């Protein structure tokens, strides 16, 4: 029912706006609702450079960082003119905000252009607390509920990943503590202030491994498992949660959205340009260096993917909101 309504709306929008076969005729704005230098910003800049250096679009792309809460830039994009010249780069946080009730709009208020890159999280404990495997972690957290401090940025991806993992692996109870992103959690783990957190592959590589792939003797970390469909090449000995018998993946990607009603030419044109940009050598290298899987999802595949993510995130966000 909902879907028909959406496609009806899309048709309406398409007829209301004159066909724009010549898109793009002016520079395109890509709003990144996060600060310069963060993971999202780097992704956007790489896409921008990939498209521009190879002339995949005849007009330049301007990356605009709108900072403050991520909802501000997202709302700017949602309310922008749907003429094919404003795009938004966002991720799972948008669904988290909608699910927890923090914001009054969500992913369904946009046209979906593409989902780019994907990495899955790694639950990681401090190596001096006597826990050697994911199952030991679950046992310990069930035997002494809320005794283990889980460093997170409450309401954000690492918090939601903790809840999602816990829900799918027999509900061990952690005490979530507001620490921040991966770097802050690494600091807190080094300072023995917290016991565990989740991190991305690139953070584990950065903080835990030596350049030759061996474990850094100074590292305070012990990665326990990989929450992805198959093992990650840089950490060949790390089992996936599925191998350990838990039915869960928790993976994160960047999404390019456009205001509702943006003409099909623009949505598809942008999606095609992004897809080509990710196939350039420069961007493949960058993905590889950050251990991000170079996957691009567009069209129907993207819709199915987003729906799947929403099914996981909506209940998790509700639990996260209730814990506060």
């Amino acid at each position, binding site marked *: 029912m909902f879907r028909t309504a959406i496609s009806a709306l899309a048709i309406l929008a398409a007829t209301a706006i004159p066909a724009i076969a010549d898109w793009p005729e002016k520079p395109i704005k890509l709003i990144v609702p996060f*600060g*310069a*230098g*963060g993971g999202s*910003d*780097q992704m956007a*800049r*790489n896409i*921008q*450079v990939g498209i521009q250096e190879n002339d995949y679009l005849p007009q330049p792309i301007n*990356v*605009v*960082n*709108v*900072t*403050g*809460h991520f*909802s*501000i830039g997202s709302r*700017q994009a949602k309310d922008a003119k749907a003429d094919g010249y404003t795009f938004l780069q966002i991720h799972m946080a948008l669904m988290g905000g909608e699910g*927890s009730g*923090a*914001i009054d709009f969500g992913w369904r208020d946009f046209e979906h252009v593409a989902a780019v890159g994907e990495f899955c999280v790694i639950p990681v404990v401090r190596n001096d607390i006597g826990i050697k495997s994911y199952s030991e972690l679950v046992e310990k957290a069930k035997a002494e509920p*809320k005794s283990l*401090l889980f460093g997170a940025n*409450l*309401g*954000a991806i690492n*918090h939601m990943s903790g809840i999602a993992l816990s829900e799918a692996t027999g509900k061990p109870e952690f*005490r*979530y*503590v*507001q*620490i921040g992103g991966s*770097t*802050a959690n*690494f*600091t*807190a783990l*080094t*300072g*023995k*202030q*917290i016991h565990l957190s989740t991190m991305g592959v*690139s953070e584990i*590589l*950065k*903080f835990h*491994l*030596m*350049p030759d792939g061996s474990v*850094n003797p*100074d*590292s305070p970390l012990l990665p326990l498992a990989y929450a992805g469909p198959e093992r990650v090449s840089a950490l060949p000995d790390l089992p996936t949660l599925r191998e350990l018998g838990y039915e869960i993946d928790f993976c994160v990607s960047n999404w390019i959205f456009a205001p509702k009603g943006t003409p099909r030419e623009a949505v598809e044109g942008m999606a095609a340009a992004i897809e080509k940009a990710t196939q350039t050598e420069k961007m493949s*290298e*960058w993905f590889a*260096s*950050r251990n991000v899987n170079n996957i691009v999802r567009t069209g129907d595949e993207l819709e199915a993917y987003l729906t799947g993510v929403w099914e996981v995130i909506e209940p998790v966000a509700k639990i996260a*909101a209730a814990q*506060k």
Partner: protein
Amino acid sequence: MLPELSAFITLFDPWVLCLILMGVTSGVVVGAIPGLTGAMLISLMLPVTFFMQPYDAIVLLVSMYVGGTSGGLVTATLLRMPGSPSNILTTFDGYPLAKSGRPGRALGLGITASCVGGLIAAVVLFTVTKPLSILATLFGPFEYFSLVIMAMVLIASVSQGSLVKGLIAGFLGMLISMPGVDPSTGMTRLTFDVWRLDGGLKLLPVLVGVFAVGQIISDSLRFGERGQVTEAKTEGILMSFSDLKKSAGNMLRSSLIGTWVGILPGIGASIGSILAYTTQKNLSKEPEKFGHGSEEGIIASEAANNATVGGALIPLIAMGIPGSVVDAILIAALMMHSISPGPTLFVTNGDLVYGMMAAYVVATIAMWVILTFSVRWIARIMTLPMTFLLPVVVVFCMLGAFALSNVMFDVWVMLGFGILGFLMDRGKFPLGPFVIGFILAPIAESKLRTGLMMTAGDPSPVLTRPFSAAFIVVAILLLIVPPLLAWRRARKSVELGDFDAGGD
């Protein structure tokens, strides 16, 4: 010492030196203009560095960082408009000294102190990088909380005018920092359903508003007048040997305080200069001069804020932990070149690390040279008719407020706070505590709440953890002892018939 030496030798390549000069100069100019900050310049340059060699990119960005931190002292001293939050304390003494007809001296002290502060931090950076960064990670939320509380108490005690008005201004600043995203839950609060407030009020529009725009409003009521000083004496730019000897202790102490605060991630240069300034005031033989053009005050504030830059590079290099916003951008610049700063950076890219450290030293010296030789022109700002100067400043303030996060709302916030700043100044409510309260309250709040989440609601570690307890004790002492001493001195001088003393 070989890799360090070779790092310096690499820097003496004409192209690299040119990058340093360009970086420092642009940093100084941008840092000096109220509303524009070094961080802004660096984030604007970030996409450009994508096309440069990693080494060149880092040299350029570090130079901009050094320049941007130093430029702010110029406008803080000459116009009482701090270029960045870390220059607030410089306005306390720099501006009165400049206004009294000695802008050259005021700037000269600030410039040399900045350079010395930077170099002392560099010594720490080259020698004890790793143990210090590990020590810093042991600083938990309760230590941060107590440190911030101490800084807040200090700022109230050193601001000019009545303590009560200082406290009111401080609390007002804290209150205004509350709307937006709750730092501990990620939910928005106190936004009164105005979604533009979802991100809260940002520091830059508030800072520039109360200081620069407020000053502009009050200056423009005196339009037609020439600048306050018709003759800007520029002698005393270079500190003499006896000057240096006299303030050696002050510089060393303030620089070390600044370096340590810089190492602690996420609390910023303003705390460094507050701690150094108040420490100096309490150790000074002439504490009554503070706030009225004290040379010691300028030195303490500027040595400390530049030292924080070097300090913040320490955890960045040793562990990949950014000590400040700008360091986070530096990390991004490295990552764009597929270099991942972390505990192994020394192993993977040792030459780059030493290059970064050497660039920091050379940029600090370059900053001193550039500023010292341009002071005689810069100081003339004091003699410019306000009718020419103010419109330019207004334009830059608005530009900066918008460019910060590309939202027009921030410009309105800045203008609104301009009016508030003007009214507060008229009512003799000090602006320093207002802005410092605004900066520090969210840090204190989030650290305390994180601590309470860890202990399931038990606040006792604030007093039982040794560092935390020490900060609280120092704060209480500093709050009680100086007024007590002043009171005793005042009583004594009344007996002697001296009515000048105890004027604070």
